[in-house]
């Protein structure tokens, strides 16, 4: 599958519950990096790992791979963490 075809890919996002393009997944993670679920969601469609490896800077790819391999944060603990961060920002 070439880059042109990849640009046209769409699927239902399991987090949002609506249809999104592969392009969205490339920028919807932290700091406009790819979403951490990008490997999970797109492996069925094409070789997403090779695609990302060849299109992302090496360190960004490595960070993404680490994040993808990690378990997403538990919701309650994420909330505590975000709240603490927000309080710090306020101070």
């Amino acid at each position, binding site marked *: 599958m070439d880059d042109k075809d990849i640009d046209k890919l769409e699927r239902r996002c399991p987090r949002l519950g*609506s249809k999104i393009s592969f392009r969205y997944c490339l*920028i919807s993670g932290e700091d406009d990096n790819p979403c951490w679920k990008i490997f999970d969601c797109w492996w069925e469609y094409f070789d997403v790992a090779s695609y990302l490896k060849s299109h992302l800077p090496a360190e960004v790819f490595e960070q993404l791979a680490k994040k993808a391999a990690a378990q997403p944060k538990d919701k309650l*603990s994420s909330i505590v963490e975000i709240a603490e961060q927000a309080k710090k920002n306020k101070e």
Partner: protein
Amino acid sequence: MELRKYILREDEIPRQWYNILADVNLNPTLGPDGHPVSPDQLAPVFPMNLIEQEASTERWIDIPDDVLSVLNIWRPAPLVRAIALEKALDTPARIYYKNESVSPPGSHKPNTAVAQAYYNKAFGIKRITTETGAGQWGSALSFACAQYGVECKVYMVRVSFDQKPYRKFMMSTWGGNCIPSPSNETKAGRAALEKDPDTPGSLGMAISEAIEEAVADETGSTRYSLGSVLNHVLLHQTIIGLEAKKQMALAGDYPDIIIGCAGGGSNFAGLAFPFVQDKIHGKQIEIYPVEPAGCPTLTKAPFVYDHGDTARYTPLLPMHSLGHAFVPPAFHSGGLRYHGMAPLVSQLVDEGLLEPKAVKQNQVFKAGVLLAQTEGIIPAPETNHALATVIDEALKAKEEGKEKVILFNWSGHGLLDLTAYDSYLTGQIKDIVLSMEEVAECEKVYADFPKPQHLKHK
């Protein structure tokens, strides 16, 4: 004529929620320091009455009259005998479902949204914030807040906000203030917009904005609300199973098998927990949470303490997990992964009180289409996981010639999620199943982690 619906009168609605924490032992949520998370850490985010419910071990918790009076808008929800499905399958099984699609927003979610809006109001909270993806939870909370005169602010991920205007219209009609995230209303949002004014947003950003707004309100009159996973959310949902028990008695039946889809756990728990109580006290009943075969959390993964992130910063939660260092088979050969099951559901699986099942995607939508064509309601895609297992069990009963009684939760309708059906009907959905060998590889990462106790119910 066979009876199709079993209806309770409004004054027959259950007056108490069932708290399963009275009957099971749950490993505590651990903080980064290894100690349980304290109420103080949660106080800026949730009202104290809900934090108390989160930790309560009282078996029965009264449902306030002011909550019942709102639930009565659509509750008691009907128990329906799926006669047309039984005929289509030619099964001797008697199949019943709780129809949670009849709520104003179209799912089980307002069962907890209403309770949460009430408790926030009772605690003196004037505004509730939340995030929403496609808008289902935002709709439920907007509806609930309208009933109590509480302001509702919903941060909806911009890409969905632009794509799904009908959910925003629903929220606005109920008085909810639904704005696209990122917004100019929080520090986090402004920083994102400054970087890229055309950003489509993300769920992480929307959560950050909703929590920031609650925490940053110096008057203390704003809190945040969550619609899944937490103990108090599951508690509020038990009204589903408590009603079902009364209605099954009206039908003169008792279920041999209970089935529900298990995403964050709340709709499954809502139906199943009151029957788990019976099982603990000796009833012969099989209870199946159902999940996708491609992203198994309950069916194949071990029960361990697992970190929330690679930095090991977040608390340790006892839950079924594929591991914080699970590498999706995509890296080897492809695969899916999903975490985030309610700890209470994980605990009951560990005790053997629940027997999780996994179903493939095509099987899931095939079931949804059959139910739409027989029972008439187009199911929510999540509901379809339960339906696929219902059909499996009904066909098994046929093979065995047994008159099994099956009860499942029809958690919502899919009228605002039709693109998922379009994907199935146009052949775009593929099946994935992790092998036991792939899961065994993932389990190696647990070697150094503390193991939770395998607790038994009280």
